């Protein structure tokens, strides 16, 4: 296990009187894909949003390279830790504009054509209207958009839940490919154990707002993780 890129300590989050995260501790090793898996309502999306401070935790801290993120400018933090959502939500009239949205806001130079190739799309798509693309292609554009900011880590919130099987499989391949080529640290939220087996190096199991356990993939999918897997399967 590499040096932790992200570390979550004692994270609590309450919304509308409900405790969604009840003191979460977790490590995200640098350069690896960490899957956060658990039944729906476990607090997975909330945990991701607390990491890049799209929401403010009630207590606890998230560390980026050992530095408390509460000390960071939230805009700076979000440029360093990118995020991909369930729904692509692209902006602008062209794919190129959609890819460069965040980069332009921060005055960063980015090459839309190269980014399209990075996510396995044809560079000629840049002129197209993003809404004319398939949802799977849109999701890859949204990954390109996050990569345009050259983030140190990428949070993916069930990025394949709106996709068909073929598109899902391409996104999974892309995640493995980005990790291999860029050594990009990734946190991949999923509720699908077979997907976790395909994409993850590390597995963190979350249920009812607390961490059930954390394993390397091999351990999780061997005898050691059997109870946790049965627990998730039973809850799904």
């Amino acid at each position: 296990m590499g040096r932790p890129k992200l570390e979550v300590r004692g994270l609590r989050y309450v919304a509308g009187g409900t405790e969604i995260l009840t003191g979460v501790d977790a490590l995200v090793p640098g350069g690896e894909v960490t899957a956060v898996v658990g039944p729906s309502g476990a607090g997975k999306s909330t945990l991701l949003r607390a990491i890049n401070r799209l929401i403010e935790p009630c207590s606890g801290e998230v560390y980026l390279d050992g530095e408390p993120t509460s000390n960071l400018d939230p805009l700076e933090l979000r440029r360093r830790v990118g995020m991909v959502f369930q729904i692509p939500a692209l902006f602008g009239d062209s794919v190129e504009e959609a890819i460069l949205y965040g980069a332009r806001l921060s005055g960063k130079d980015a090459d839309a054509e190269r980014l399209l190739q990075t996510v396995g799309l044809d560079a000629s798509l840049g002129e197209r209207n993003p809404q004319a693309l398939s949802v799977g292609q849109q999701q890859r554009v949204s990954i390109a958009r996050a990569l345009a900011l050259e983030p140190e880590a990428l949070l993916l919130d069930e990025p394949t839940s709106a996709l068909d099987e073929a598109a899902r499989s391409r996104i999974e391949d892309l995640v493995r490919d980005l990790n291999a080529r860029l050594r990009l640290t990734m946190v991949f939220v999923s509720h699908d154990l077979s997907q976790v087996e395909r994409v993850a190096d590390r597995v963190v199991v979350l249920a009812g707002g607390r961490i059930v356990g954390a394993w390397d993939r091999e351990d999780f999918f061997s005898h050691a993780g059997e109870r946790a897997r049965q627990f998730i399967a039973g809850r799904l």
Partner: protein
Amino acid sequence: MAGLQTVTSALLTLGLVAVAVVLSFYEKLDLEKDIGVAVVRSFVQLAAIGYVIDFIFGLKNIGVVVLLLAGMVLFAAWTSARRAKDVPRAFLFAAVAVGVAAVATLGLLLTLRIVPATARYLIPLGGMVIGNSMNAASLTMTRIRDDVAEQRPKVEAALALGATSRQAVAPILRTALQRALLPLIDATKTTGIIFLPGAMVGMIIAGADPLEAVRLQIVVLYMLLGSVSIAAILVGTLSYRSFFTPRHQLRTTPFEH
């Protein structure tokens, strides 16, 4: 004896109502009672408001006029805040927006001596400014509230890419302001061609010089355009912040304080 003549002619027009009542009776329309109630109520209400207006216009103290206008602003803000429920601090924002719009436009009219500082001018013009600004404020706030809830994924995606709250909400703000301002802008564009403003028609019928009526109407239109724009833009730039924390986070539920 013009007043008496008016009363007499009003009574004579009741003859027309009598025809309607007779027709209703013979045709079994069952409207006699409603017509009767309408006749009595309109007479009482208009007579009452006539005395109220007569009293207000007779006011020599400009302080009382200012107080009345301030009361109208607060009532408008209350009405607007009720419409824009779930928008945190909506009353405050509406009061500031409508108040600034009223002070700016009426202040300009007074400073440039376009209208005299009397109740006869300030109350009706103020009523128009405040009423229209109130509608624009309500439209802007409800639109922002609904769009922030509906387009939450887009707003979050923008924030996650390092956008500030203002940058993330910009498309929503633009739509809300367009929706609030376009009806008045279009009405102003087509005025005189598609419709003649009621006040102008009234002045011409009452015997005013048509060019004088036009002059006043132009003042009114520009005043409304100015005040409504000020109110909508102010309430928009004030209220969108309620949906975000200072750390550029969308509040958990858009309606959580």
